[in-house]
């Protein structure tokens, strides 16, 4: 009797476990649908005509014509993508190099009052870009950088250094000091240790930082809108709003433009998802 009671208990436990798993999977699938369906719907509508969009927004397109995509590409997306690529890559390289040097100094130097400097650099994380906009506009105008690539590259670099330094510093703290000392015994200078030993060892976190920075810079809107004005210098987020303003009624082209602008970043994310997650986890606990 006790045996059958026990087996009934086991069956009930199994059932609860399976049910919980099913619920979890269903929830995750729903979450995935909520995130992915709008993107899918946007890309799909890029293939439709305006009439089809208004007639039945959720139906499949009558044919997969890329005309809207070609139109969007030729009506500015090409330039916006080029600007975004320049600004994103330029600021990514600057941010990562400056942050890596800063992190190296903060982890390796025997600077007196080091915690204070760490506090200052990491305190930058608290600084909201919005409050600095007006002085920055004046500064950029005075320096003659307003409405140039450099305005965005410099600003993106400056505002991302605290976060990137935070990640690289945490990683560098975990690197064995013996390697630095071995390099010192080998006669390497601080610069040589940084470039030839520390930096190559930081490759995983540098890749993560570049990806996180690309995600940020590619989608940044506020600075891009304020510090650039000409169509030839606008980045994708700002350019997209221009396209929407210009082709307000031609939704098919707008959807195609939006899809084209999201595509590179989505592809980057999926290709480098591993590094992205590691980057987020790296700052924990150090």
């Amino acid at each position: 009797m006790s045996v059958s009671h026990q087996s009934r208990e086991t069956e009930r436990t199994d059932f609860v476990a399976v049910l919980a798993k099913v619920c979890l999977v269903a929830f995750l699938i729903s979450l995935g649908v909520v995130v992915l369906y709008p993107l899918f719907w946007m890309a799909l509508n890029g293939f439709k005509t305006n009439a089809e969009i208004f007639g039945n927004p959720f139906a499949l397109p009558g044919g997969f014509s890329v005309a809207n995509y070609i139109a969007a590409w030729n009506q500015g997306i090409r330039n916006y993508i080029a600007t975004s690529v320049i600004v994103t890559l330029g600021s990514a390289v600057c941010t990562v190099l400056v942050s890596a040097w800063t992190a190296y100094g903060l982890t390796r130097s025997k600077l007196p009052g080091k915690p204070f400097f760490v506090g200052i650099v990491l305190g930058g994380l608290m600084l909201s870009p919005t409050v600095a906009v007006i002085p920055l506009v004046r500064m950029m105008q005075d320096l003659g950088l307003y409405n140039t690539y450099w305005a965005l590259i410099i600003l993106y670099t400056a505002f991302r250094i605290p976060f990137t330094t935070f990640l690289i510093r945490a990683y560098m703290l975990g690197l064995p000091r013996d390697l630095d000392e071995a390099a010192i015994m080998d006669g390497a200078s601080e610069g040589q240790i940084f470039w030839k030993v520390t930096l190559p060892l930081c490759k995983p976190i540098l890749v993560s930082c570049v990806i996180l920075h690309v995600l940020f810079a590619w989608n940044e809107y506020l600075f891009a809108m304020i510090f650039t004005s000409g169509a030839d210098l606008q980045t994708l987020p700002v350019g997209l709003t221009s396209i929407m303003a210009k082709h307000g009624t031609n939704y098919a082209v707008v959807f195609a433009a939006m899809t084209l602008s999201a595509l590179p970043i989505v592809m980057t994310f999926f290709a480098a998802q591993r590094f992205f997650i590691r980057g987020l986890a790296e700052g924990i606990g150090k």
Partner: protein
Amino acid sequence: MADLTLRNIRKSYADFEVLHGIDLDIKSGEFIVFVGPSGCGKSTLLRSIAGLETITSGDLVIDGERMNTVAPSKRGISMVFQSYALYPHMTVYENMAFGLRIAGVSKAEIDERVQKAGEILQLSKYLQRLPKALSGGQRQRVAIGRAIVRNPRVFLFDEPLSNLDAALRVATRIEIAKLKQSMPDVTMIYVTHDQVEAMTLADRIVVFKDGNIEQVGTPLELYKRPANLFVAQFIGSPAMNILEGTVVGKSQGVTHLMLECGAELNVSADRGVLPVGERLSIGIRPENTQIIPAGEHGPVLTGTVDFVEHLGEVQILYVDMVGSAQKYLIKTADDEAYARMDTIRFTARTNDIHLFDAKGRSIAGRILEDHALTHVSRSRFRGDAPGGGGTAQRSAGLRTGALDP
């Protein structure tokens, strides 16, 4: 060729002094081993010699040149780290060549030196591999190779074998000994906490405690004539047994000691050295203790076996001494069976008994210090002093104890 002299070396971190004035002379081509418990300052001294730590005060002299402020790479020193510290993103060849490239050595010469080191250390097949593709022993050899290619005057080893398993440790230890033989002019300083490494590799051992040198000497000197209680207990495994006793009287050139456990001990030492009432520590090594077979008479101590450790060739008996709460360890051949609660009687040859005064100094050492203080004080630290020592130890002997049945 490099003579190395340390004069009153002190090292402090803020207000905390870790090295309290180290004096040491190391001759060119010597193999010196630093031993001591964790935190005794041996690694700090090694790193100070390397230049990885600044010296707070004192002089570090290599071949007559003061090196305190000279950059590590300009001291003619190579160091092998405990963790190997190989650059993980460089191949074995690049690891060995890194220092030479920085020094601006020509490609042809770099190649020659790396290939030669590879041959010596049997690494020729692995030169294009990354460190992660090597075994622990091979990585250790690469670390040694990286040190060799720079043709150093002084080699520093910071616990290089501690990350290896037991078998590999023995093999690599032999390789290091052979390496030393192949480079007779190179001075080597080796830090370890492993006594076997110290005893087998060293020309001289330096024993550290709390930032001071306790004794410098050849391995056998340290084993046979420890300068004080600390060295006596640190060198040798298991550690020397220490019994407490008091000088209770003298007669006809013999000094009588009463042990705390109740046994009596007679010592024919210099009476001037052992005044009545002086408390002494009597040291007997576990391996020098002889178990007296039942029925035999003689000067003995008595105890009950509490635990037996079998090591195959030998066994270690943990004995509760009669009249004392102290454990006494005996190392003996594993050919006779002992069990818990067996009562045994044991003794030691007079030659194997060490005497220490209340300050823990060896009585032999104290005789020398009391009679020739000025002569001994410095040379003792060079490890060439206690030549005439050991008279008191050799003339000591256990007499029939109060507990002798």
